[in-house]
């Protein structure tokens, strides 16, 4: 039988209630002051729920603003009892223009981060509301920016195959854990991969995430930032699997190696064209059933599937085993694409060079401001499309 970390007011059973897993400090910790019955003389005063919220809020002190956006503001914060324990507080704004109550991206982020606890997934330490009913998500503080920052700073940051292997290992374990828990992330890209003080990579931004669907229920295909979006979604598939995330993981891998986005399409049509050029044209031979997908159109003339030599030429620094893994993540047919678990079993990890220890990975300063930038964004948006196309469509479209 489970014990709730909730403290039963006036209960003699406190010792039992405080036996908690390491995770139980999420939301309301077991050592929160016990709310006393009859404390509130005012009828409109604090409920038990409000008291618990207040206790949670009291644990943190909000500091300077790290970033400001239309969707959220991000603050540096610390524990009241331990000023050296830093946290990031993401305050989600009440969206006046959104008239359907709590917005889907906030709901998704909360729903999934509350459940997932893994070293390579950003930790949600607590949630509380402030007076104006804004949601405050207390997240672990990740001061070293994100992978995009490192990739882009070609002159300032040098890294090699061992470093890439370390980062990819952490990303692969994160996505394996999501899929093992039946969660699709649906927005994997370098600037959602944040870096902790000790070099650990953490997958963040679960605003587009959802649980695996039942086979008969449709899902929206309008997810994942375009450059990292797999062909099945570009073709409008309504039933899909963890393979969508694997494609994105493959493109992060490619980008880490060549230090520029591998397929940076300007439009969805352009994105399909780039895939046909870089990987090959999807057809009934290499992907049975593809032509039945609702938005299947490919440019003429078709390109054959690129062979190993092509990949070795472009991504050779990853080594032959690395190239083999990359090719398996970029298989057009999602049913043939490698799974997260199979990725972890790939021989690349055990071949030379060994992955760099996380503490020794290349770093870059100025990550604090980047964290503010990363956390305040709406999910699923490329820097050039802040008009929030993907997220808007998701809010109001046939969201199933």
């Amino acid at each position, binding site marked *: 039988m489970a014990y709730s970390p909730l403290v039963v007011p006036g209960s003699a059973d406190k010792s039992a209630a405080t036996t908690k897993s390491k995770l139980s400090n999420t939301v309301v910790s077991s050592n929160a002051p016990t709310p006393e019955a009859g404390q509130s003389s005012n*009828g409109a005063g604090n409920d038990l729920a*409000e008291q618990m919220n207040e206790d949670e809020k009291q644990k943190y002190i909000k500091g300077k603003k790290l970033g400001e956006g239309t969707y959220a503001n991000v603050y540096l914060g610390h524990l009241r009892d331990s000023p050296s324990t830093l946290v990031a507080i993401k305050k989600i704004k009440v969206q006046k223009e959104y008239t359907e109550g*709590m917005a889907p991206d906030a709901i998704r982020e909360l729903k999934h981060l*509350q459940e997932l606890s893994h070293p390579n997934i950003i930790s949600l330490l607590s949630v509380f509301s402030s007076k104006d*009913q804004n949601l405050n998500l207390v997240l672990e503080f990740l001061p070293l920016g994100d992978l995009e920052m490192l990739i882009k700073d070609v002159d300032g940051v040098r890294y090699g195959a061992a470093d890439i292997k370390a980062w990819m290992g952490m990303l692969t374990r994160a996505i394996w854990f999501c899929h093992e828990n039946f969660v699709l992330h649906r927005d994997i890209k370098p600037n959602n991969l944040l870096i902790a003080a000790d070099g650990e990579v953490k997958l963040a931004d679960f605003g587009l995430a*959802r649980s695996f*669907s039942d086979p008969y229920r449709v899902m929206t295909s309008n997810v994942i930032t375009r450059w990292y979006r797999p062909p099945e979604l570009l073709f409008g598939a309504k039933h899909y699997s963890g393979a969508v995330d694997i494609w994105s993981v493959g493109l992060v891998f490619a980008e880490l190696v060549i230090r520029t986005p591998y397929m940076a399409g300007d439009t969805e049509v352009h994105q399909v064209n780039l895939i046909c050029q870089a990987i090959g044209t999807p057809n009934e031979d290499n992907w049975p059933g593809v032509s039945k997908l609702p938005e299947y159109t490919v440019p003429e003339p078709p390109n054959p599937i690129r062979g190993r030599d092509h990949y070795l030429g472009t991504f050779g620094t990853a080594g032959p085993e690395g190239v083999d893994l990359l090719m398996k993540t970029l298989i057009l047919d999602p049913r043939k694409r490698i799974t997260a678990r199979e990725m972890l079993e790939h021989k690349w990890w055990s071949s030379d060079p060994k992955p760099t220890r996380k503490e020794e990975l290349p770093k870059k300063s100025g990550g604090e401001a980047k964290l503010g930038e990363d956390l305040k964004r709406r999910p699923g948006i490329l820097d050039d499309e802040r008009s929030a196309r993907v997220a808007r469509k998701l809010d109001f479209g046939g969201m199933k």
Partner: protein
Amino acid sequence: MTSTGPLNEDDRYRTSTQYRLWSFTPQSLHTFRTTTNQLAAERVREAVRRAREARSADDASGTDSRSASAVPEGEVDCLTVEEELKLIAFYCRQTLQLGDHLKVPTEVKATAIQYIKRFYITNSVMTYYPPDILKTALFFATKTENHYFRLTKFAEAMSKTKPEDILASEFLLTQGLRFTFDVRHPFRALEGAVMEMNAMASGEIDGPALKGMGRKVMMAHGKAREYLKTSALLTDVYFHYTPSQIMIASLMIADRELIQLYISTKIPSDHPSSPDLQAKILETLEQCAEMLKTVEPSADPAPAEKKEISALGKKLKKCRNPDMIDLVGLQRAKREGEEGLDEKVVKKRKLEREQSAKEGEDLFGPSLKK
């Protein structure tokens, strides 16, 4: 648990909020509910006392005091914990019917009901009126279960309901849920177990004990599903058992012999602790099945129950916290900030809301549009 080793189902379940925050011993659950009930009753009495004082002050000064007319005379007779639970169970059934009316999937209805049950562990029906909360819970569940429903459409499908009525308690609900929205249901587990039993019955996979029992499996499947769709939602089993325990217990009610055979295929009989383990598992399942059986899987409550609920509904009307009736007004005040509002406007809105609340205070909730 290593980060790359295979995760077993139990490890995974133990990291869920359903286990960490929403699983209780029967004793601790009862203590919670008792505390909530007592706290709410005290606040009702306090609020009524203040309302009476205000009224006599108003009377003395000769001002009109219609707003206090809802406050009953005499000592307030508050609901007991058991009475609250009966009302909550009744409104959970209503939620099922509302969900059927709106044609939402089973998961949405099931999640909404668990939201209601979780919410009322730390909130009393005397404070927050269940017919209001259930609409909000069902709407919120459409969002968390990815079955998006336009708010205006949702409100239109119910009589006497405006979108703002539904949103007024949304934040309250999420706070009562401690911002955890994931609910683990036994439905998928049932489909998995049935697939496996079918494969054993047809000889596709090993499981000779079940060979040729395809028909029995089919019958058990249907009956178990009925229990999961009603009894499992309306009793406290989610608070005390895991989804897989609930699933197997429902199958056991359906066909005990079949399920004992099925369990025996899972625990090798040559294992030294096998008899103990089997006994332990069966005992737990037995308890879960007993709890499930306390609510028959029919959609309608029995006539005697209806009569009792009707009396409880009347009692509730007399002990609702007068400060918490106008949720829309309270919500608006919270969002807009107290100082931004003219006191007269607040009072006027409150009166309007109370009037419409009274009209809408049909015991069996709003009637469904045909």
